């Protein structure tokens, strides 16, 4: 339903244009770019960290109360409102490092938000790999690293990818953290890779046009932006999953 309202009006100009405050026809170009940029950066930080921590919990961690406590804490943190992560990001980047509102701060804060989910999903997926496969690999004389790399992760990949998709979708739609740490402005250029630029994302732009903007076509922009947002979440799913599907199909053939 949301798609039907927004999609037919989408145009290339809308996707790449600069936003406008007064006249109709403002675009979402920089916000769109920032969305991807911040998402990419935050995933680049959180996937390796989250996976490594998940691997630690699943494979190396001793089975004691402290680790169990950590595990529950990690789970519990996913229920902390994202705004708290935003405040944490502010006190870290703005108060301590004096970085102002930047893409970097936004991406790292977002990465923190993603970490618990990624860690737990990785751990759960690794644990669900049958022990027999692990034993088979060890019995062939592989080191622990080789087993993790060549057996555990490939087998657990489906679950991990589902987790990454969920996290990426959530991160893509997240606004509170970005408003607090990366601001509601863009640097006004479409392709700005500067890590220290302010970085409004699509979700933030959506929040802005829905709640405060007074351009005449705010409602229109909101619908279109929502449509774009949903399409992109779909696209992210596809990008991550298609290789898996293709692999599965090839194996069957």
């Amino acid at each position, binding site marked *: 339903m949301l798609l039907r309202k927004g999609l037919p009006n989408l145009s290339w100009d809308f996707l790449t244009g600069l936003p406008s405050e007064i006249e109709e026809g403002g675009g979402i170009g920089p916000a769109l770019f920032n969305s991807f940029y911040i998402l990419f950066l935050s995933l680049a930080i959180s996937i390796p960290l989250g996976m490594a921590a998940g691997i630690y919990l699943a494979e190396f961690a001793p*089975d004691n109360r402290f680790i169990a406590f950590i595990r529950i804490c990690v789970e519990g943190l996913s229920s902390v409102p994202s705004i708290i992560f935003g405040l944490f990001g502010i006190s870290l980047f703005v108060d301590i490092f004096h970085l102002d509102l930047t893409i970097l701060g936004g991406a790292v804060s977002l990465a923190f938000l993603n970490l618990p989910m990624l860690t737990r999903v990785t751990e759960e997926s690794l644990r669900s790999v*049958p022990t*027999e*496969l692990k*034993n*088979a*690999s*060890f*019995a*062939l*004389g*592989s*080191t622990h690293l*080789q087993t993790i790399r*060549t*057996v555990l992760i*490939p*087998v657990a990949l489906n679950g991990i990818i589902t987790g990454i998709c969920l996290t990426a979708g959530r991160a893509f739609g997240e606004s509170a953290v970005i408003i607090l740490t990366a601001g509601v402005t863009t640097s006004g250029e479409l392709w700005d890779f500067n890590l220290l630029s302010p970085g409004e994302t699509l979700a933030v732009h959506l929040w802005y046009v829905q709640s405060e903007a007074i351009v005449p076509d705010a409602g229109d922009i909101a619908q279109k932006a929502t449509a774009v947002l949903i399409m992109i979440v779909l696209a992210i799913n596809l990008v991550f999953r298609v290789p898996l599907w293709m692999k599965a199909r*090839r*194996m*069957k*053939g």
Partner: protein
Amino acid sequence: MQATALIEINKLDLFYGAFQALKQVSLEIPQRAITAFIGPSGCGKSTLLRTLNRMNDMIPGARVEGSIEIGGTDIYGGDVHVETLRKKVGMVFQQPNPFPKSIYDNVAYGPRLHGITKRRELDEIVENSLRSAALWNEVKDHLKRSALSLSGGQQQRLCIARALAVGPDVLLMDEATSALDPISTIKIEELAQELKDRYTIVMVTHNMHQAARVSHQTVFFLNGEVVEYSATEKLFSDPSDQRTEDYISGRFG
């Protein structure tokens, strides 16, 4: 029967925490012959098998006293490289456990681990191993197919091929036929007969007829102790211990 001892087990004790699973086990396992471990469930036969390639290392709380020497080297000594040990002492498990990869990748898995990357070399190893495991003719036309699409018996032979591909000298078979139908079982037994000319084979079985059919030497376990070990023919026709006689005549177990 050739009687060069390849593996010498000397007064081996194994504990899982407080529980003693093996008590003062001493054995010699001859080279290029089939040795069978028999005994009722929980008698320690599989446990002993798993000490031979140190798969018990991964069980928390497992502790070993005494020595196991392979070719004069104590495999629990500090200077032993566990991965090489497992490469030289291959293992086939009770449940067929192929990786969810293609047939080719399953067999090539081990060699790749150990640093072989050249396609031609790999092709050769895969073909030789599959031939040795009497599977080549059945699968040579669809090596890219998923290993999981094979039947149970084929999967188990694939696992044998996978174990052979890393070039072991010893092959441990842990009730390798117990999950298979009679025809597949016979095939595996025939295979073992062929392989014994090149490999030292140790098999655990709960099927006394199998031990009688296949092995040259049989060891009878009870409650973690070796009750009797001698040439298979002798053990089954003229056991020297009353408990052995009770077991093989089906009075318990």
